[in-house]
């Protein structure tokens, strides 16, 4: 049970939150190509190392926020964009 720091609620057990996966930029649906769209749908960096990801404070403040987590060690640090 890792500890995830919610910007509002502070460090919380990860069971209080939901991991919403890697942050991926969404192409503009009006102008995107299908190939680009499907890359957005299906392709992920999936690194063995630091990844910027979204968490949802499901049992707390209900905020979506991003952090950086190392997928090899589960270390967590603040994300630039949070």
């Amino acid at each position, binding site marked *: *049970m890792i500890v995830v720091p919610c910007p509002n609620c502070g460090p919380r057990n*990860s*069971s209080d939150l*939901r*991991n919403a*996966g*890697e942050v991926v930029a969404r192409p503009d649906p009006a102008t995107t190509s*299908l*190939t680009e769209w*499907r*890359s957005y*749908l*299906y*392709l*992920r960096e*999936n*690194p*063995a190392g630091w990844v910027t990801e979204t968490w949802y404070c499901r049992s707390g403040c209900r905020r979506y926020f991003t952090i950086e*987590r190392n*997928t*090899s*060690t*589960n270390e967590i640090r603040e994300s630039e964009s949070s």
Partner: protein
Amino acid sequence: MSRHGYKYSAGRLLRHGLTRDAWPRMWRRPERRDSYDVVIIGGGLHGLATAYYLAQNHGITNVAVVDKGYIGGGGSGRNTAIVRSNYLTPEGVAFYDRSLHLYNTMATDLNLNVMLSRRGHLTLAHTDSALRTMNWRAEVNKLLDIDSAVIGPAEVKRLTPSLDVSPDTRYPILGALYHPPGGIVRHDAVVWGYARAADHLGVHLLQETEVFDIICDGGDGPDGKGSGGRVTGVRTSYGDIGSPVVVNCTAGWASLISNMAGVPLAITTHPLQAAVTEPCKVFLPTVVVSGSLHVYVSQTDRGELVFGASVDPVGSYRVNGTLEFTEELAGHVLELMPGISKMRLMRQWSGLCDMTPDYSPIMGYTSVEGYLVDVGWGTYGFKAGPVAGETMAETIATGRAADLIAPFTIDRFTAGDLVGEKGAAAVGH
């Protein structure tokens, strides 16, 4: 000597018992060559089976299987060893049925007892919608001649008396998909059987050899990698090995290895955990799966209960396990079998699973010539090992994708033609 080298038999066992003679090695520690016709990355079940069938069915023996650790140390040795073919889609059924067929004759084909135990596989339904899905699977299965049917709670109880089928539980057992040919097999023995047979046919098993890079030229990416290029070999911890064909048969690391060739994969890596109890006298005759409760269980011949669940919700490359996995697992197992609360969990472990968006593998040729993949096996790679090896070998030898793997091409994601196993495979053991 048989075609697999030193033949095992009851007679041999007797003779060795009497003479106390040493048994020969099951496989060599070969001298590494500078190049091979085919280099397979990953010495697990898939890699070894591919090598075996290349040699056995197609006569291609100048093959190296490269693994950074020891053979069978990844998912092949960490899974819960369940085999079955009662999938949801006709593509899935045909594929896994061929695999089950290969498992059926494996002990004699490979001259090693892999202890296939077709003890019957029950997928429990706790809701009417789950029951509907079971019916769907059963109907598809029957059309494809798979022994599979939906049975009621009384029959479930008859087959597996320790299950609580009373209607007043939180997750009542409304019925089950019963698949008599499903069962378990000794996973390590399968790995060793393929390793021993492949070695005898001339394949080199290069253990403790890590691949750092896949060497390419002509591609549209950096260092000649990527689309339009071709493979020339691999860079390993023991130097470069040349090969016109490199096959990615890894799990857990598949996307990282594939990036070495400039071929991105639709994969996220998640830990999958399992656990085993202390041994107790055998009381559980079948393999029991509950999708709603995210648990599957069987009892080994040594009396241990082996448990598995669905993948961890958070993607990572961690294999140290979590406490919450054991808590949820125990809670759910006891919902099904309240009477075993005093059994003790003895060991938990994890493996890495490469999950694809449609819970189906990615197999065959890629945009880089000579670079093939057999990856994205999620939680069901073990069942598919034999057929994956057979079809990958055919694909390599003939230069075109084998029919059975046609639905699993890497291009299906950009084409939007996903395979429909997701519903059935979420806890598809």
